[in-house]
């Protein structure tokens, strides 16, 4: 034991401060307190939730309802993937039909995008979640450009209105958005959520028992035909139509997988693959019931599309890879509000 001060006492303290301070700086840097480049998940969700935060609700696609049913596999995908739910069997799922936007009370018929999200009950050891939307492709290729797109589309804080000049400038500056804008200008919203086509948009890999990877996209293709009859008007027009329709029997979709050819770029979500690509009907989604989302089975689920079972893998698509962190941040915010009892109610 040394009772006297060691030599170079100041230098010794300086070294301690440098080591501890350096580590503290490193941790602070990782937490984003110092600098940082690129768009973060927090900035993304801030933008999505808009100026008015609807506590307890998803920050994107806030308005929706829960559905439940089962997936009846055809077995057609079995040679391409080891995922057990594509063997010839039936797998229950919980899902959610929703419309785009951060407002949980938005009028159904005004939403530009509709979506179907599914969470398959593969067991306690596996999960498969997918969030499908009406557009077949993205307008942009990177999360940074997607951030700019959402910024251009966001209503002005003062006027509450969108700026058409800003929007057209954005699409002019992003020629990769052509397939998306072509789709958007031809898209006719259907009269029912049961007659829409919902797309995975991003591509994924199926992996079979031999380790072979096949790039795929999928879509939920409605079995019911579009009648052309407009739903009764009202804020919840599509919701009411769907619940009424279910009273007459299950709502069905074919789950159709499109297999990429080697020349197709699986990592680019802006480019559609040619119509001639091979398609396989993996099975049928049979929706038997629907419930409001408040307290419903889908409410607590984050439909992160990177939750994949064995036999499926993500591509290197940068938008797909960014979705996990953004979904997690949105989930964190609303779950926290529910835990603290601060969640609001829709319809106020």
């Amino acid at each position, binding site marked *: 034991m040394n009772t006297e001060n060691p030599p170079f006492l100041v230098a010794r303290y300086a070294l301690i401060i440098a080591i501890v301070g350096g580590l503290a700086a490193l941790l602070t840097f*990782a937490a*984003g307190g110092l600098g940082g480049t690129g768009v973060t998940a927090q900035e993304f969700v801030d933008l999505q939730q808009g100026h008015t935060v609807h506590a307890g609700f998803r920050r994107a696609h806030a308005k929706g309802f829960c559905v439940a049913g089962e997936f009846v596999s055809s077995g057609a995908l079995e040679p391409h993937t080891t995922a057990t739910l594509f063997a010839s069997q039936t797998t229950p799922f919980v899902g959610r039909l929703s419309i785009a936007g951060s407002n949980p009370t938005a009028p159904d018929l005004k939403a530009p995008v509709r979506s179907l999200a599914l969470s398959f009950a593969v067991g*306690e*050891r596996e999960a498969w979640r997918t969030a499908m939307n009406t557009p077949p492709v993205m307008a942009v290729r990177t999360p940074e450009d997607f951030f700019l797109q959402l910024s251009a589309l966001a209503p002005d804080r003062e006027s509450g209105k969108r700026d058409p000049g800003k929007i057209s400038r954005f699409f002019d500056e992003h020629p990769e958005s052509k397939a998306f804008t072509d789709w958007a200008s031809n898209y006719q919203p259907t009269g029912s959520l049961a007659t829409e086509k919902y797309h995975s948009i991003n591509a994924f890999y199926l992996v079979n028992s031999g380790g072979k990877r096949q790039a795929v996209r999928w879509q939920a293709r409605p079995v019911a035909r579009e009648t052309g009859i407009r739903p009764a008007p009202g804020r919840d027009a599509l919701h009411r139509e769907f619940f009424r329709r279910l009273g007459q029997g299950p709502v069905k979709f074919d789950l159709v997988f499109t297999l990429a050819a080697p020349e197709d770029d699986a990592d680019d979500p802006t480019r559609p693959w040619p119509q001639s690509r091979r398609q396989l009907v993996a099975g049928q989604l049979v929706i038997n019931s629907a419930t409001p989302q408040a307290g419903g089975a889908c409410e607590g*689920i984050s439909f992160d599309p990177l939750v994949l079972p064995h036999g499926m893998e993500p591509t290197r698509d940068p938008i797909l890879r*960014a979705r996990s962190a953004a979904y997690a941040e949105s989930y964190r915010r609303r779950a926290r509000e529910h835990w603290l009892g601060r969640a609001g109610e829709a319809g106020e």
Partner: protein
Amino acid sequence: MKPDNTVATYSFTVRIIHWGMAVLLLSLLLAGLTMVRSLEPWQPALLGLHKSLGTIAFIAVITRLSARLDSASPGLPQAMHPLQRAAARSSHLLLYVLMIALPLSGYLMQSAAGRPIHVFDSLTIPTAFPVNQELYGLFRETHFALAASLAVLVLIHIGAALHHGLVRRDGVLQSITLPKGKLDKA
């Protein structure tokens, strides 16, 4: 685990696990803080790694705790003020509590989200209960609060250890570093 003044160092097992976990915990903290913000293409891989390494850290701390209880631990120098000794002991106890609670809260929040833990694609830990949003909110915030507490406590721990090693030079730092034979008994 009762302090034993006849030994000058922790057992070899405890020392090895200590330094292994030092690297592991710092990596886990950095990965965790980064992956919740990043939209980069490597984010999902980092998230997977965080869960795998977190599981290993949990196994390591349990092993370490039993190794520590199994062997004699060196006592603190009598020259330390009783309050300092109490602070040292309680901070070590708190470090163990955090090292155990942190991976548990991570597992529980993933369970609440309905997501099993895949450890390096070779082992799967099933979810503990069905999806539950309120519990996710609780465990997600707990996980962060525990991580932030651990980060602060680790910095204090390093600062205090360096103070023992560089300024007080009382053998406390050496008790976790030097091999037994080379210990300076001065």
